[in-house]
């Protein structure tokens, strides 16, 4: 479980400020949504939170580790071991099969081929794509790709999961299935989850909703899901 705290994070591109002194805190095992229209800076925010991009200002702290103070290589190592990333289009490596994609982070972390294979099989079963384990991404449907992507993001049991529009390319049925799967499995693991989306169907399944506008987080809504779980 991870506690995430981003303080006065700003991010600039030439001629434009994308994030403007944004504050964000997520408690351990909390699942929250960041909503906002296209171009509002949701992806930039996630990139800053996971250390892919260094923010122009402010700090990002995950479980006491100040991510912004780490070197790029240490940030990569931290990301590999502690974070799980889910992307809008799955972003599986097209040359690898589904099971190889899931095993990839495990192998990069030093797991043996056999161990990584066994754990990847378990995760594919967990996300119900085990029958397509040997299929390449080009042979999978959008929903299957996204479920494999979720398995890859969670297979090493990260303490923080960041998902960038994970249902953006899916139809309504798949959106509901993928959102429930992502939130459900992350809750089982006790991982903290931050999802960016513009889809209320996804947002309604998380504990809290923040709205990103003009580079700042404006609202803080408690969802029905949270109330149902006894949150405030």
């Amino acid at each position, binding site marked *: 479980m991870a506690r995430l705290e981003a303080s006065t994070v700003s991010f600039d591109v030439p001629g434009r400020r994308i994030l403007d002194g944004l504050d964000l805190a997520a408690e351990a095992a909390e699942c929250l949504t960041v909503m906002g229209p296209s171009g509002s800076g949701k992806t930039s925010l996630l990139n800053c939170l996971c250390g*892919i991009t260094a923010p122009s200002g402010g700090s990002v702290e995950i479980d006491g580790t100040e991510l912004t103070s780490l070197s790029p*290589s240490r940030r*990569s*190592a931290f*990301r590999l071991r502690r974070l799980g*990333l889910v992307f809008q289009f799955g*972003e599986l490596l097209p040359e690898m099969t589904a099971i190889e994609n899931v095993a990839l982070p495990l192998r*990069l972390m030093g797991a043996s081929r056999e161990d990584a294979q066994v754990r990847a099989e378990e995760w594919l079963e967990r996300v119900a794509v085990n029958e397509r384990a040997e299929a390449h991404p080009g042979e999978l449907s959008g929903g299957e790709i996204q479920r494999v992507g979720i398995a*890859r993001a969670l297979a090493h049991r990260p303490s923080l999961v960041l998902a960038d529009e994970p249902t953006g390319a899916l139809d309504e049925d798949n959106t509901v299935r993928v959102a429930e799967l992502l939130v459900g499995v992350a809750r089982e693991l006790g991982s903290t989850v931050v999802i960016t989306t513009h889809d209320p169907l996804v947002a309604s399944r998380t504990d809290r909703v923040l709205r990103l506008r003009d580079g700042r987080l404006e609202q803080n809504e408690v969802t029905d899901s949270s109330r149902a779980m006894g949150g405030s």
Partner: protein
Amino acid sequence: MPVSAAVFMMLLLVASSLMAMTQREAHRETQRMAVVAAKPSPSDLLLTIANDVWGGEQYPVVWVEPATEAEAVLPPGVSQLPKPGQAVISPGLARLASQDSRLAARYPDHLVLGSGGVRSADELFAYVRVPEGRDLAGGQATVRAQGFGSHPVGGRALPLTLEPSQVTVTSVSAGVAGFLVLPGLIVLVVGLAAASGVRDRRFEILRSIGAPARALLALAVLETAILAVPGLLVASILWSAIGSRVLGGAPLVGSVVVGGTSLCLGGSSSPSSWPA
């Protein structure tokens, strides 16, 4: 990508061939320099540099004569001292002489220089031993050579050419770098850039999930090798098949480039068997 790698490799091979050829020519020219005798010795060879003209081209003719009755030092490529009045001519001159009787008449009963005695296979050059009744001793332009090759420290050596070669290793290096290697690199970089869209995406994904820098580097090297090796192999095979013929027709400023290395001529004694 394989095509750009092949083009780059081909240009690199042309460049390296030209460099090697120029270096070989420079080395042979050095080995043919007459080391001026610091003090007379019975084995010295007297020589005088003159010139002759054929087909509008002026070329050096070195008159030689042993200083004494003793066995004299021999220039590189000369296996035996010619008889009085006899010439030892370069393979290029011998080829021309075989095609024109007027030139052949200038060097009757000639011997042919070995490959170590000429700068390139079609260089026009001749050693001629002075005829009976004439001698070089006492001549103002006569040089007393104690040997051939690089001159000793403090000594002096005379290049057996009419004028020093304008084509130096440095000038050829600059030429091949500017006209072959640089364009080749541009072709390679453009090829890499054109093929990199998919690779960029793959590396972006790997970086996103936190792949270590050394893993990314290893993958980049492996991928580049897999992409480039077929092109490099094709270019190498192609060059080994046609390289010497291509170079044979390539003019260098101030120098005539010939097909292949003159070492290839070493085993031949018949002018008609030499390549054009």
